C-alpha cells in the first residue's frame, strides 16, 4: 500500500447559480496576460451545451484521455509515446484558437477621442491576437443560459445515447431545463497530460497531488492539450509554453483556498484531502466502463483505518495531513455519503474533482388529482399542465420523481455516471431523501413514516441527513475548505541550507517569462 495524499474538490451543482465569479477571480489572478487571454483555467458551462472549447467532450474530434484496448491495458487515445512522437511536427488533434474563441477587447478610447462628427462614435471590437478589428463570432460563454438558439444545446455530445424523442422532450419550451457546470483542472490520479508530455515537463506533486507544468522544461510539443480529455491544458501562443490550472498552489501553501473557491458566491465548492493507494492506480483505471466509478472510489482510503494511518506515516504523509483527511468535507461527500461523482470517469484519468449532480429542475412531480382547487393556482402561462394535474412536492410518489425528472437521468448519467443510470438515481434519491427529511423537520407537512421510509430506502439515518444538510447549506468557510499545512518550510530546509542563504534575496533565480527567439 503506497498511501499518498491528494487535495480533492467537490462542486455542489445544485448550488451553482452560474455567476462566473470563479472564472473572473481566476482570470484576474492568472490568465490576464498576452497569450493567455483566451484561457479560462476555470470556466462555467451551461448544460446542455457545447462547452468550451466547443464540443470538448467529443473525443472523436479531440482524442483526449485514455482508452481501453482489449482486456487489460489502457493507452492514450490521441498521443502517447509513438503517436505523440510521430505527430510532433503536426498534431492532427490539436484544438486551435478558433475552437476556443479569438480573444478581443474594445477600442474604448475611440469613444472619447473621436473627432466631432455626425455619428455617435462606437467602441469597435479588436482582436487581442492581431490587434485588428474583428467580427465577434463566438466567445467563452456563447451559449450561456442556453442563449440564442437551442442549436448549441442540441450539439451537446452527452445527448448521444438519448433517443430522438427524449432529446426533443428536453428542448420543448415548457420543459426546457439547464444547469451550470463549473470546470477546473481535475488534478487527476492518472493524468493523461502528464503521460503525454514528451519533454516530461508535466508532473504531479507528491505531497498534495497538484498537477503542474514546468515552464522551463515545456518545449511546445502540444501533446498535453490533446491528451487532456477535459481540455484544461492550454497552449500559450505567445510564450510557446503550455499552461494549466495550478490549483492556486501558492495560496494553498499559505493556507488560503484557491481563488475560484474562495470567491464562489453560491458556496458550492469544497476542498479537502483524500488519502489514496497509489499502487492500485493503473489497475483502477483499467477496469470496464461500468466499474470505473466504483474502482476509482475504492482507491480512496479510509483515513481512520489504523493500517492506512500507519502506511501513510511511513510514506512521509504529515500527521497534520492525516488529520485533515479525517475531517475532509470531500471525503464525506465522496465516500461517507456517496453523494459526489467524478465528471466523465470514462476518460479514465481518475479525476479528483467530484460533482454532486443537480436535482434539476426543483424536484417536483405532476400528479393526477381531482383537486381542481390546486389547478386554479397554476400560473396561466404554464398551460402545459391540464387541470387534472398538480405541481406536487409532497406526494407519496415523491421518490419516483427522480426517474421522471424533467431533466433525463440518462443525460446526467452520460456526464457523471459513465452512462450508468443506476448510479445517478442512487445519488439523486439520497439528495431527495435529505430534502424530504428536512421538509419534515422544518415545514412538517411530510409525515414521519414517509420520511423514515424515504431515508431507509437510501440507507440514510436522520443524523446523517442532518449532517448532509448542514455541510450543504450551512457550512462556514473552514468547513468547506480544509487545507492541510503544506510544510513548505521543511521542503526549503531540505533543498537549501537556510544558513547559507541568510541575507540573500531568495532561492535560485528568476527568469522573466519572455518568448524565446
Amino acid at each position, binding site marked *: 500500500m503506497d498511501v499518498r495524499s491528494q487535495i480533492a474538490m467537490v462542486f455542489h451543482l445544485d448550488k451553482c447559480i452560474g455567476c462566473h465569479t470563479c472564472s473572473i477571480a481566476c482570470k484576474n489572478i492568472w490568465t490576464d496576460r498576452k497569450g493567455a487571454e483566451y484561457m479560462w483555467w476555470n470556466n462555467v458551462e451551461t448544460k446542455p451545451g457545447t462547452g468550451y472549447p466547443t464540443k470538448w467532450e467529443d473525443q472523436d474530434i479531440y482524442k483526449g484521455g485514455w482508452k481501453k484496448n482489449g482486456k487489460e491495458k489502457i493507452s492514450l487515445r490521441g498521443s502517447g509515446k509513438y503517436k505523440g512522437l510521430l505527430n510532433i*511536427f503536426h498534431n492532427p488533434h490539436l484544438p486551435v484558437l478558433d475552437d476556443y474563441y479569438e480573444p478581443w477587447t474594445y477600442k474604448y478610447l475611440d469613444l472619447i477621442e473621436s473627432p466631432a462628427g455626425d455619428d455617435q462614435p462606437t467602441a469597435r471590437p479588436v482582436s487581442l491576437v492581431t490587434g485588428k478589428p474583428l467580427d465577434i463570432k463566438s466567445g467563452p460563454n456563447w451559449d450561456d443560459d442556453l442563449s440564442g438558439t437551442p442549436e448549441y444545446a442540441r450539439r451537446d455530445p452527452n445527448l448521444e445515447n438519448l433517443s430522438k424523442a427524449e432529446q426533443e422532450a428536453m428542448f420543448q419550451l415548457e420543459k426546457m431545463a439547464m444547469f451550470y457546470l463549473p470546470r477546473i483542472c481535475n488534478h487527476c490520479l492518472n493524468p493523461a497530460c*502528464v503521460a503525454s508530455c514528451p*519533454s516530461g515537463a508535466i508532473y504531479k*506533486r507528491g505531497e498534495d497531488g497538484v498537477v503542474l507544468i514546468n515552464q522551463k522544461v515545456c518545449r511546445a510539443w502540444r501533446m498535453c492539450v490533446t491528451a487532456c480529455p477535459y481540455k484544461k491544458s492550454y497552449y500559450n501562443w505567445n510564450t510557446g*509554453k503550455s499552461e494549466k490550472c495550478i490549483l492556486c498552489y501558492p495560496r494553498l501553501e499559505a493556507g488560503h483556498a484557491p481563488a475560484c473557491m474562495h470567491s464562489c458566491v453560491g458556496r458550492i465548492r469544497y476542498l479537502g484531502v483524500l488519502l489514496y493507494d497509489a499502487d492500485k492506480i493503473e489497475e483502477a483505471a483499467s477496469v470496464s466502463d461500468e466499474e470505473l466509478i466504483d474502482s476509482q472510489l475504492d482507491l480512496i482510503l479510509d483515513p481512520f483505518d489504523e493500517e492506512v494511518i500507519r502506511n501513510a506515516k511511513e*510514506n512521509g504523509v504529515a500527521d497534520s495531513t492525516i488529520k485533515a483527511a479525517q475531517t475532509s468535507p470531500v471525503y464525506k461527500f465522496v465516500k461517507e455519503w456517496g453523494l459526489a461523482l467524478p465528471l466523465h470517469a470514462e476518460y479514465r484519468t481518475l479525476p479528483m474533482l467530484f460533482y454532486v449532480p443537480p436535482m434539476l429542475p426543483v424536484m417536483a412531480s405532476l400528479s393526477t388529482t381531482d383537486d381542481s382547487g390546486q389547478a386554479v393556482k397554476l400560473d396561466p402561462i404554464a398551460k402545459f399542465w391540464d387541470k387534472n394535474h398538480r405541481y406536487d412536492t409532497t406526494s407519496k410518489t415523491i421518490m419516483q420523481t427522480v426517474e421522471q425528472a424533467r431533466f433525463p437521468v440518462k443525460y446526467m448519467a452520460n456526464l457523471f455516471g459513465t452512462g450508468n443510470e443506476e448510479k445517478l438515481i442512487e445519488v439523486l434519491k439520497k439528495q431527495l431523501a435529505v430534502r424530504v427529511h428536512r421538509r419534515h423537520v422544518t415545514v412538517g407537512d411530510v409525515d414521519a413514516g414517509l420520511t423514515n421510509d424515504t431515508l431507509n430506502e437510501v440507507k440514510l439515518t436522520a443524523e446523517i441527513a442532518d449532517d448532509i444538510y448542514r455541510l450543504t447549506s450551512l457550512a462556514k468557510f473552514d468547513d468547506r475548505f480544509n487545507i492541510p499545512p503544506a510544510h513548505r518550510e521543511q521542503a526549503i530546509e*531540505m533543498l537549501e541550507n537556510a544558513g547559507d542563504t541568510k541575507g540573500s534575496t531568495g532561492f535560485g533565480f528568476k527568469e522573466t517569462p519572455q518568448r524565446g*527567439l
Partner: protein
Amino acid sequence: MTPFNVIFFIALPYAALLMFFVGTIYRYKATKFKFSSLSSQFLETRKLYWGSVPFHWGILFLFFGHLIAFLFPSSILAWNQQPVRLIILEVSAFVGGVVTLLGLINLFYRRLTDARLRKVTSLIDILLEALLITEIFLGLWVAFGYRWGSSWFATVLSPYLKSIFTFSPNIDAVVMLPFIIQLHIILAFVIFLIIPFTRLVHVLVYPLSYLWRPYQKVIWNWDRKQIRSTQTKWTIHKPRNN
C-alpha cells in the same frame, strides 16, 4: 590560401562550432524558459500540415544522409559502386531535397501571409527561413549540376570536415570546388553559427527520452520516506530530490 579561403573554410567553421556549443549551452542554462519549439499550430493548423510535415521529415532525411556520408564515407562509396544503386541514392536524396524545399516554401508563405502568425514572427525567424531556403536550393543545384555528389562528398568533403574536427584543417580539396558548392558549405556553417540565436535549438531537445520514461511522473520536494523519520540525520548537503 587566400584570405577568402582562410576566413570561410577555417575561421568560419571554428567560429560556428564555438558559437554552437557555447551559445546553446549558455542559453540552455541561463534562459531555459526561452527554450521552445515555439509552435504556431495553435494559431493556424491547416497550412502548417503542408509545410511542417514535408519539411521536417525531409530535413531529417537530408541531415542523416549528410551525417552518414561524413561519418562513413567508405560505406557510401561501396554502395555507389553499382550505377543502379548510385542512381537510387541520388534520386531519393534529390526527391528528399525537393520535398523539404516545397515544405519550407509553404512554411515561409504561411508565416508571411497569416495575420495571426505575423504577431509571433521575429526577424530572426524570417532570416532563418530565408537562409534555409537558400541552402536547400543550393543543395539541389549542387546535386543536379555537379554529379555525383554522394561519391565526391565522401572523397572530398568528408576528409575536409574530419580535418576540421581533428583540429588540423586541410582545405586543399575544398578550395578547388566550384563556387556554388562552396557557398552551400559556407551557408551550412552560418546556419550552425546562428542556431543558438534561433528557434532551431528545439532540435537539440527532441524528446527521445520519452520513449523510455514511465508515463506518469510524480515529484516530491523531499525524500518522502526520510523526511519525517526520527532516524534521519540532519546533513548540510542537499538530499536528492528527483
